[in-house]
């Protein structure tokens, strides 16, 4: 089983090497490098940046993450359910529908509460 994933590991490593090779070896040899302080400033439409962007991110954005985690966990169950669905039949259907409906109620609640509004 684990040997199946040798390719995955290899692809990730080669992907890393490919980028490094291109940027830090191949391109480094032929590209110019004349850094000036102004060239190295952060782009903010040609003006000096005012403060930094590393601020505290508002809590309301995390609501989406919470929703995501909720549904991501659910889909993991659903995947298993889907594969063996045919062999389980009606029981699986009803059970999973109950599960989904509970989640949908959660979604409806979030919807009604306005947690799905991006502001």
């Amino acid at each position, binding site marked *: 089983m684990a040997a199946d994933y040798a390719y995955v590991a290899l692809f990730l490593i080669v992907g890393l090497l490919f980028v490094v090779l291109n940027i830090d070896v191949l391109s480094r040899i032929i590209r110019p490098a004349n850094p000036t302080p*102004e060239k190295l400033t952060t782009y*903010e439409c*040609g*003006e000096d940046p*005012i*403060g930094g962007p590393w*601020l505290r991110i*508002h809590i309301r*954005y995390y609501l989406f993450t919470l929703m995501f985690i909720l549904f991501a966990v659910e889909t993991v169950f659903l995947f298993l359910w889907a594969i063996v669905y045919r062999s389980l039949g009606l029981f699986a259907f009803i059970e999973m529908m109950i599960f989904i409906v509970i989640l949908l109620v959660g979604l409806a609640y979030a919807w009604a509460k306005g947690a799905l509004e991006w502001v």
Partner: protein
Amino acid sequence: MTTINLHLQQVKERTTESMEEMWVNMGPQHPSTHGVLRLLLKLDGEVVRECIPYLGYMHRCHEKIGENRAYVQIIPYTDRLDYLASMYNNWAYCLACERLMEISIPARAEYLRVIIGELQRIASHLIWLGTFGLDLGNFTLFMWCFREREMILDLFEAVSGQRINYSFMRIGGLALDVPEGWLADVKAFLAWFTPRLSEYDRLSTDNIIWQKRIQGVGILKPEDAISYACSGPMLRGSGIRWDLRRDDPYGIYDRFEFDIPVGPNGDVWDRFWVRRQEMEQSVKIVEQGLKAIPPGPVLAPVAKKLRAPVGDIYSRVESPRGELGHYIVADGSERPYRYKVRAPTFVNLSALPVMLPGYMVADAVAILGSVDIVLCEVDR
């Protein structure tokens, strides 16, 4: 790079920096500020809380140049104000001088001015529609609009020899009569253009993303529009039926039949829709002009050296962007003593800090686009 920002220091001092809010420079080098406008936005997440515009990156003291030129020499400089509607600038300036010097111009010139002016309005609105499409992320509309605009520019090139800065109108009429067959070309263009409008609609008006992006965004209340002296489509988009072509007619606009589209809500959609319909109305006006145009000379006999009598005048016309006013003070010499341009976009832009707060960055781009600014005119 290191602009002296005394004011910015004050801004920063008076803001107790909240952890979730940040100041962002939008512009001068930003794709959606239509030139070199700089907006300083206070963002709370994605929502704009405050907006401070900074102007002047294109300032060249047009008015000082004007005070140093003879009346006829100013005409090429007026082209460079609103370079997307140069013909209208020529017209506005010449009209102000004609009113000041009490010159009346031949009938053919009046009709040609209307035809050319309305074609210019279509061209200007086309460029607005295209760049507004760019602001909303639709690249194709931009190119299509530019294709039709090029056709109008071809017509103008045949008339004046230039594609952008025409310098075609003169105090007392036009520099030249139009070439033979030109009026037929205009007619052919209109026949081509009208169906294209419904093609634009497919990508813009009828498209749900387009509708959702701009409906209910950037609302400018009518009382604010009047207080900020907004004009043109900005004012009409706020539900006020006011068009100088009808309400303070200049030239021969009182002889034409046309509607004045207004939008009820004052949002970006209404401003878009007003301009979109104005193109149709302009087509109507040009068609009427083509039917009624008389033969004759196009330039009134005027003195070689123009001198205006002592006095002043505030003369205004309805340019594609709104009320384009020229305030000229004459002291009897061949140069104006004081020459001020009341740029419509300068005034319209001043309402921006009222419209922006409460909307998102993406809306800010759409709202700014809906003002239809030309920075050369704003900064003069």
